[in-house]
């Protein structure tokens, strides 16, 4: 087993045991992993909604850059990649091409 390295060319999906959903009780998005609960902030939610097994990391960065025109694309790219790498290291993401 090897570490999943996230780059602009990666296409990612949620790992099969990860649940990302809206919680009615708390009125917020949550992400659940084995014995772990994550409470993604607004930006993380936007990114996670684009982690669909089809949209590549570069396209996710583009989508955010279009939405947040004040921030330089480079900065957005660094933030998005770091966040996805962190989630990959926690076992929450998988390579869309791998089964």
């Amino acid at each position, binding site marked *: 087993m090897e*570490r999943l390295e996230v780059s602009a060319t990666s296409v990612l999906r949620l790992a099969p045991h990860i649940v990302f959903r809206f919680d009615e009780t708390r009125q917020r998005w949550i992400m*659940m992993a084995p014995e772990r*609960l994550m409470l993604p902030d607004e930006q993380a939610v936007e990114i996670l909604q684009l982690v669909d097994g089809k949209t590549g990391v570069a396209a996710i960065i583009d989508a955010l850059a279009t939405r947040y025109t004040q921030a330089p694309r480079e900065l957005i790219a660094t933030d998005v990649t770091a966040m996805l790498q962190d989630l*990959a*290291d926690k076992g929450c993401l998988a390579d869309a091409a791998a089964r």
Partner: protein
Amino acid sequence: MPPRVDPPLALLAELSHRCPLSCPYCSNPVALERAASELGEAEWRRVLAEAASLGVLQVHFSGGEPMVRRDLPSLIAAASDHGLYSNLITSGTLGGEREISAFAAAGLKHVQLSFQDFEPTNNDRIAGLAGAHARKTSFAAAVRAAGLPLTVNMVVHRQNLGGVPEMIDMALALGARRLEIAHVQYYAWALANRAAFLPSRQQLDDATRIVEAARTRLKGILAIDYVVPDYHGVRPKSCMNGWGRQFLNVTPSGKAVPCHAAESLPGLVFPSVRDSSLADIWYRSDAFNRFRGTDWMAEPCRSCDRREIDWGGCRCQAFLLAGDAGRADPVCALSPDHGVVEAALQQAESAPPAFVYRHFS
């Protein structure tokens, strides 16, 4: 002002105290509940439904050994139907591929499998069951074959702590993505056996160094959760992240408690799910409100700037070591009772006594 009470995040469903193992550090109470007093399937299904509507997100099926219950697949399915994220905490000594496939089909999300040591002979000696290690190993393979994520849980103490490097290798070989290296916590059976388990400072520091190096080396491959023995700390653990703040435990006979050791506390009446709704228990019972917030605290906790970080530490430990659940956790170096912890640490520097194995009395 009464503290604000948020909905619980997790439910620990202790389905049974029955277990083929007899580990001398078992976290079950010393007075184990018998099979005849266990909640039935319909009662558990109601508890799961109520938990979900109360806001619980994750359910941990535990025990004892939860796989002694034949209705486990049906309870997992009920949890899934209510949107609960379900986790099985098992010894992996009952059943295998057939059972795991049924659990996976019912929507189980994750398995946490316990080991007593990487080395079979010592594993089976600590578990008090011959052949346990071999069964656990094939159980792990069945979990992976069913496509379920696996966490290996290694309970560590002075009689196996030297094997941490091999434990890490074993977890990797079993295909686990997570390894929990959890030092024994001293309650119930483990407190009776404390001198046999508490490691010396040197043993602990060596193990901690190995874990830290492995975490860096295995980043993205194996996540290692590491629970240190609080006796060696300076400040107490934030036990359960605070009494009645996030966590709810239902015992085999239906008693609702804020943590699995809370039944040891005198003067508290823990409500039963047979008589009350989970919402009533969570928001309105005396037992759950007793140590919520900070108003109950005495000094040195009351004026401590960490009072809402560690919540005074563990109420059970305060009672067990200082005789009063309302005092500071004696593990805290600021506690006036800290001497009892220092005495136990002193004892950890000499040879360990024999085990008292878990048993029904």
